[in-house]
């Protein structure tokens, strides 16, 4: 009774425990000390290490940028154009690195973001200054050559006037940015002296242009750059209406060419880049609808050329606008998440073909682009688990303010079960089974005998055997021989063979096998049992 009940109880408990464990087996890590922290401190051993990042290089990079403006402006002033090109290239490279760093470190919402915008505008201004100064030099040389030819001289004058206006406008914008940039530089303890010197150099270059213009105009009424026009009036006039606009607005750039012919082409430049080519109408007017797209906020210049005639320079202002970006997530087949959203300016206009960044878990950045309706879509592959995503629009080169969406979380299920582990498990079980079976068959091969052994069911009368006084192991041997003889088994049979042939007495033979070959010693009760069995008692109880 005890035995079977206890076995049953053990089996039931074992099955219960296995079921309980099996329930947990899907997620085997039951508990792990992860990210233990209290309000006062966090356990550094459990916080994930990450690379030191480039935060340390942010402020030195700002220092480099300001220093580079100083050298660049100086080389332009000294008319060392080769060095200036090299300096400009290095400045562009530094600006690119700075932009990348600001986006990676996610600091564009601070005054560093403002510094970044100012830096972009400074970059444009210094590049324009370099080109304008070079062209201005060429004009100065050309003006001397064509002194005799009135018509050509006039075109040179017009172009010179246009350049002068450009440089003056660019300089005033550059100088307007000085106060904010110096304030930010002082906040971060950066040396702003080179930058302030660059403003001075810029001023000198603009003044030199003024001086030349007065000189060739005979120095009459020109007392130094007061308003547009002076004593030179180009026949080609340009104006921008309205004078201000923001992203998506359409500005009309046009004017009259007093000395032009109908159908002649007029090229319109915005910030020294060709914006459009239009033809003169019958009344010698031209007009172009300019849509404010990817252009920096702030002051810009427009001028036109017809053949070799340059127009005056018209200034217009692009006003910044706020934007808003939305993000919605949808899980796609367990391993990827589809991100969609809209990027619109505050007045509802969509921002088209603009780069959008999706920040995954605060670290990784994935790029996407909006289409013609301002909608973007990206599919991102992520490992299983919970992830936090945020869409950001860094308005690089747009007259828009940066914006970001609220952070959304998504939980990915991960891939389903793959068949490879199951195949491995089955293969391992088969291999183990084959190995164990082979080992067993090796053991029983030497003992393989024809199975036609006499069936020993008949028990012959017991011989009289006494084991009193014998040592236990010898007594066991005697008992074994007795039983073997009683069952009619030949004396060549080993205990194992006997157990195989007479399974009813298997327990006895196994016990004897251990005694005989494994050196075990039977106890008194065991010997009594064995004696009873050997001499014809009931079935085995070994």
């Amino acid at each position, binding site marked *: 009774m005890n035995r079977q009940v206890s076995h049953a109880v053990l089996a039931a408990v074992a099955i219960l425990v296995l079921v309980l464990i099996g329930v947990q087996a899907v997620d085997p890590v039951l508990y792990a000390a992860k990210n233990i922290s209290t309000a006062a*401190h*966090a356990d550094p*051993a459990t*916080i994930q290490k990450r690379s030191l990042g480039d935060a340390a290089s*942010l*402020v030195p990079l700002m220092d480099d940028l300001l220093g580079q403006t100083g050298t660049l402006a100086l080389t332009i002033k000294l008319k060392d154009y080769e060095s200036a090109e090299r300096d400009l290239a290095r400045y562009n490279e530094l600006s690119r690195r700075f932009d990348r760093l600001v986006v990676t470190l996610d600091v564009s919402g601070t005054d*560093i973001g403002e510094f970044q915008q100012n830096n972009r505008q400074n970059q444009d201004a210094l590049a324009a200054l370099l080109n304008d100064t070079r062209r201005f030099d060429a004009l100065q040389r050309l003006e001397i050559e064509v002194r005799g030819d009135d018509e050509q001289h006039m075109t040179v004058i017009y172009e010179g006037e246009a350049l002068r206006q450009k440089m003056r406008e660019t300089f005033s914008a550059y100088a307007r940015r000085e106060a904010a940039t110096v304030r930010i530089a002082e906040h971060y303890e950066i040396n702003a002296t080179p930058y302030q010197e660059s403003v001075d150099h810029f001023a000198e270059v603009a003044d030199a242009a003024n001086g030349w213009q007065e000189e060739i105009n005979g120095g009459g009424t020109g007392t130094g750059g007061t308003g547009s026009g002076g004593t030179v009036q180009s026949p080609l006039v340009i104006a921008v209406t309205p004078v201000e606009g923001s992203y998506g607005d359409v500005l009309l750039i046009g004017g009259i060419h007093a000395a032009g012919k109908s159908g002649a082409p007029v090229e319109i430049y915005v910030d020294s880049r060709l914006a459009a080519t239009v033809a003169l109408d019958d009344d010698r007017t031209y007009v172009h609808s300019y849509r404010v797209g990817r252009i920096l906020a702030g002051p810009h210049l427009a001028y036109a050329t017809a053949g070799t005639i340059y127009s005056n320079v018209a200034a217009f202002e692009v006003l910044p606008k706020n934007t808003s970006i939305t993000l919605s997530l949808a899980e796609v087949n367990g391993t990827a998440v589809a991100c969609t959203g809209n990027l619109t300016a505050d007045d509802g206009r969509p921002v088209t073909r603009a780069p959008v960044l999706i920040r995954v878990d605060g670290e990784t950045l994935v790029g996407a682009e909006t289409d013609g309706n301002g909608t973007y879509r990206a599919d991102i592959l992520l490992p299983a688990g919970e992830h936090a995503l945020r869409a950001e629009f860094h308005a690089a080169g747009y007259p828009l303010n940066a914006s970001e969406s609220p952070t959304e979380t998504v939980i990915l299920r991960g891939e389903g079960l793959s068949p490879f582990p199951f195949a491995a498990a089955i293969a391992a079980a088969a291999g183990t089974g084959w190995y164990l079976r082979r080992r067993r068959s090796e053991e029983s091969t030497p003992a393989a005998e024809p199975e036609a052994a006499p069936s020993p069911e008949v028990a012959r009368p017991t011989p009289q055997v006494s084991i009193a006084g014998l040592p236990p192991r010898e007594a066991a041997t005697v008992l074994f021989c007795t039983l073997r003889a009683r069952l009619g088994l030949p004396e060549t049979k080993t205990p194992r063979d006997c157990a195989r042939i007479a399974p009813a007495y298997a327990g006895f033979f196994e016990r004897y096998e251990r005694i005989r070959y494994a050196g075990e010693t039977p106890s008194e009760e065991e010997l009594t049992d064995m004696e009873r069995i050997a001499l014809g008692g009931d079935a085995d109880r070994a």
Partner: protein
Amino acid sequence: MPSGVTQIEREAWAILLILLLAAAVAYAHVTTTTEEYSRYNTDWNGTSALPAEEIRDLRNLDTAATLLILAPDRPFTAEEVGYLQTFLDAGGRVIVADEEGTANSLLADLGSTMRVRPQNLASLERDRADPGLFTVSVVGNTSLFAGVGTVRVNRPAAVTGGEPLLETAILTWEDGDGDGRISGDEVFGTAVICAAEGNLTVLGDESLFINAMLAENPQFIENIQPIRVDSIHSRTGTANPIINTRLWIQETPPAAAAAAALAILPVAWHFGRKRDD
């Protein structure tokens, strides 16, 4: 099989072994706590690994040692302030480590202008994912931080006044909305984590002394040796009655003698009486 030992005795040995294991586990469980900053907390946020000596009396302190007041949560009486003042005047060093501002009343009593301002400082100058775990640099010239260039801090508070000893990088901000990044109207700025006035140093990060942080700034811990921890006011004690009883027994000689007698007497009686088998 061993033949001289019977089955019953073998089972008894096995049970004894298991009971010993269980007793060891129970002992370890009962004599340690999980209170923060406790000397009996062997976990990451305890101070059991800090090589310091506890003192209960602020009188006649050895001026060669550094007195550490770690996360004080009990007020100082006027008498105790007087002892501290004497100690400071005699040339002893006092370090007050506090992150919550509870030491401000003590600092006011000592006549110091330094105050602790609890803030949720976060910095970009870090190599861990948590924004509160960052490095600060040593400014100023003091023996406390001799040979130390940077100190790794763990969610510190800012200290105002005094002569600055530890300053954060410029890319540090107070994370008001707790989102781990600079946003809204948060601005960058440096903050002072540790300041000193003469021999009195105020350290805005008491987490520097917990077990998990001791390995991060080994030179600093070495510089302030030998340390005496003011266990009356610091939070290095424990509310666990068993530990406190054991401490009391250790410190009161009559109680120790009584405990020893309690342990020896039964054994002596057992072996001393006549055997009657």
